[in-house]
């Protein structure tokens, strides 16, 4: 199976007067899995439906393998899609749901049976094929929806929050299952999610959305280590990066009266200093007081109070028992620091 290449050029969408998606450029390579990550209502589903051809773009172009498909009917785009709601046909059993795309292509009954059985076997729903969607579990519905998208062997797979209705444990196994499947088949895929761990774990590259705009389109490592602005810095990573607002002057960052030495490459004037909770070490000279300690299992998340309303989140290994109000020293030297200018754009490497 061959995955197609997808290119979006200045793609935008407005509903009436509301601009839901601002002009967007993005390219998905053949066989790649790209995740759209962003908070609720930022336009992820809209973008997916534009690619599927359900919505017409207000401007810009969609290209599959270099060919413009703007006015191509969804049925002719050779895509498989798993909807946020699964959208299984309630009047058909799972077998007929999965067979639906094949029936429309008038494929012979024997071949339909062979292909449905194969994909159902592969996804582990062979035992429930003759039940209606309402008579199987959410996980089985999700697999059936995936099976229906895969059975016609599309060259592009669109997944709209396919795991959001599953419980935490199935979700983890479904993640790796989908990823393995996608890699085995080499289908170009777009996965929409608002769960960052899902995006980071599954995708080759992630497009971070906020309010109708792509903030950064990069590999998970890049997003994590070099967020291109304060939105991405605050959105990717759990717990999120500490973003301190203050003023940069010649090797120093002034954070509301607290001076932090910074290496060269920082911007001048006001801006943001970013530091991840896991990069801060305890036992330095910066005096703090412990606010609350949240045990997260392997680690403990400390909220440290630096006076005058300044707080920092710090991640430390579990095991140290600390009483609220205890005095703790902080060490920032050696920690990777991220610089952002007053508009929130990344400065330096």
């Amino acid at each position: 199976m061959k995955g197609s290449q997808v290119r979006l050029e200045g793609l935008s969408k407005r509903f009436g007067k509301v601009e839901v998606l601002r002009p967007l450029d993005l390219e998905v390579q053949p066989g790649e899995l790209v995740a759209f990550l962003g908070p609720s209502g930022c336009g992820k589903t809209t973008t997916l439906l534009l690619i599927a051809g359900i919505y017409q773009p207000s401007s810009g172009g969609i290209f599959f393998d270099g060919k413009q498909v703007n006015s191509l009917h969804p049925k002719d785009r050779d895509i498989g899609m798993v909807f946020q709601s699964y959208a299984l046909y309630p009047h058909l059993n799972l077998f007929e749901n999965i067979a639906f795309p094949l029936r429309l292509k008038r494929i012979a009954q024997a071949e339909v049976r062979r292909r449905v059985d194969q994909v159902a076997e592969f996804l582990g729903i062979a035992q429930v094929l003759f039940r209606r969607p309402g008579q199987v579990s959410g996980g089985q519905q999700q697999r059936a929806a995936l099976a229906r998208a895969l059975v016609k062997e599309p060259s592009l797979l669109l997944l709209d929050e396919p795991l959001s209705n599953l419980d935490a444990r199935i979700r983890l196994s479904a993640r790796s299952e989908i990823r393995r499947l996608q890699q085995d088949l080499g289908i170009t895929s777009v996965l929409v999610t608002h769960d960052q761990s899902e995006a980071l774990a599954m995708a080759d590259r992630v497009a971070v959305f906020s309010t109708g705009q792509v903030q950064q389109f990069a590999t998970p490592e890049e997003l994590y280590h070099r967020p291109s602005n304060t939105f991405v810095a605050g959105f990717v990573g759990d717990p999120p990066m500490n973003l301190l607002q203050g003023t940069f002057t010649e090797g120093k960052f002034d954070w509301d009266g607290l001076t932090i030495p910074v290496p060269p490459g920082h911007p001048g004037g006001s801006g943001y200093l970013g530091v991840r909770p896991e990069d801060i070490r305890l036992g330095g000279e910066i005096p703090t007081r412990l606010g609350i300690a949240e045990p997260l299992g392997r680690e403990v998340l400390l909220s440290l109070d630096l006076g005058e309303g300044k707080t920092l989140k710090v991640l430390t290994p579990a095991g140290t028992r600390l009483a609220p109000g205890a005095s703790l020293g902080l060490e920032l030297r050696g920690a990777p620091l991220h610089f952002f200018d007053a508009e929130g754009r990344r400065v330096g490497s």
Partner: protein
Amino acid sequence: MRRWSVAALFLLPGSLLIVLFFLLPVVLTLVLSATNLSTTTFSHPSWVGWGNYQELLQARFTPLILKNTLKYVILTLFFNVGMGLLLALITAFLPVRLGDAFRALWLLPRITASVVYVLIWQGLAAVAPYGLLSDLTGNSQNWIQQSPWAVVVLANGVIGASFGMLLFTSAIRAIPSDLLHAAAVDGATTWQSIYRVVLPLLRWPILFVSAYQTLSLLTSFEYILLLTNGGPGFYSTEVWSLSAYHQAFSNYFGNAQFGLGSAMAAVLVVIGVVVSLIYLRVFNFKELLGEPKVEVN
């Protein structure tokens, strides 16, 4: 004990109404149908047992009236449900405002008084230069006289279709749009989505509208009464319910035969029950009730 008395208290008002306005009239009709009550025997009716029914069996025009009834119900039903479905589908895929405006327009006849509505039809169907149809076609004739059945079916169907249209529209709106999107992605044309997704999901409303319309068509006769009064000629558009009315209240010989009319009404009740049972059977009523009509996750 207390549990039952509270339940009974809540059930009482509704039950009372049902007994008073549904059960009692049926019983009265059945009782009347076993008498020879008429204008002439009004002061001294007597029991005739199955006599009225026997008379119906032997009457010369009974087969014709039954055939007319069947024709009327089936033709109008198909027009009603088919047109209602068509209107609902068309207006559902129109822009919302346009669809709403069109449906509102189609509802006008239903809120027009029957007599006025029939007057409009008579205006349409009259000879030139008075009739619109005659003027438009250049074929001057009284269309009601020439093709009474077409006019009867159309006049009833245009009104009746609005019922299905409303029900089907709301049922179509209740279908999650994701299902139609999924069908499009799966390779369906608009027509295939309608045929393979929308129509199957409308099974329940279609059953309901068909059953309801069948029953109401069996008993409705006011438009036929006003349009043709069963004519032209002898019984050419006389249906069972109209005939019952004629026997009981408007007999040709001035002798209103309440007993015979009641017997005809009773026969209609039996036919209605049988038809309902057939519907429930054909559409597998139990299964339909057993699960949600449209699933939302």
